């Protein structure tokens, strides 16, 4: 992490927040393109939301690769879990899904797990 100026760090945080938000937004659009139970699954391929979600994922992945050039894998990997926090927020705002204690607990456990996985890879 040596050699990073304050501006570098601000830029990295901005990219990180944007990238995780886009990744979460991508999964929202994919969900939007997906018919509920019983619907015709081929409709997915005709939905513009599917491709919008795909493009957002690619942008997020590219930003992630950029971050990996600036920061070690063991830091980038766990920070990617911010995506789950965005998803909980978006699915509450846009889809009316409830934020429950259990969901928050599960998310925190997953984040701890990802941090451990990354630590072990260091």
């Amino acid at each position: 992490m040596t050699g990073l100026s304050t501006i570098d760090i601000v830029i990295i945080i901005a990219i990180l927040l944007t990238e995780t938000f886009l990744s979460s937004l991508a999964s929202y659009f994919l969900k939007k393109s997906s018919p509920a139970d019983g619907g015709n699954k081929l409709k997915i391929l005709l939905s513009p939301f599917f491709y919008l979600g795909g493009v957002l994922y690619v942008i997020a992945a590219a930003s992630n690769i950029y971050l990996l050039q600036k920061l070690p894998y063991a830091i980038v990997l766990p920070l990617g879990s911010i995506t789950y926090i965005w998803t909980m927020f978006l699915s509450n705002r846009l889809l009316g899904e409830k934020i429950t204690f259990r969901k928050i607990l599960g998310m925190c456990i997953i984040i701890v797990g990802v941090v451990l996985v990354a630590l072990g890879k260091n």
Partner: protein
Amino acid sequence: MLESLKRNGKGIILLLISAFSLALGQLLWKWGMKDLELAAEIARGIPGIWTVFLHVLPGFAVYAIGAVVMTIGLGYGELSVLQPINSMSYVFALILSAIFVRDEVISPITIVGVFVVVAGVIVIGGSSKK
């Protein structure tokens, strides 16, 4: 919890399959890239066409299939329950690399982390109340 697993069940299974495809796609990519670098070193910039066909393109295809499977899966439950299951791709990636790559030592902390991720997915998978 059982009720949630039943309601989101199909979605959970499909998301697990897509997480697996993600890990598999990554592995194929990693192999492909390694081979390409190797080929570039040996042949001075001529990438092995077989590498492209055997690893890079299949890697893309597996990714794309994973995305479609994930999208179908998201139709079967809550986004806030299903999306975090993506984190299982780390677990699958480790298992796949332990089986096929075997060039890196997996530390005990990572193994503990894998179990913690699985526990988190179980907690969140059984959390839906609608």
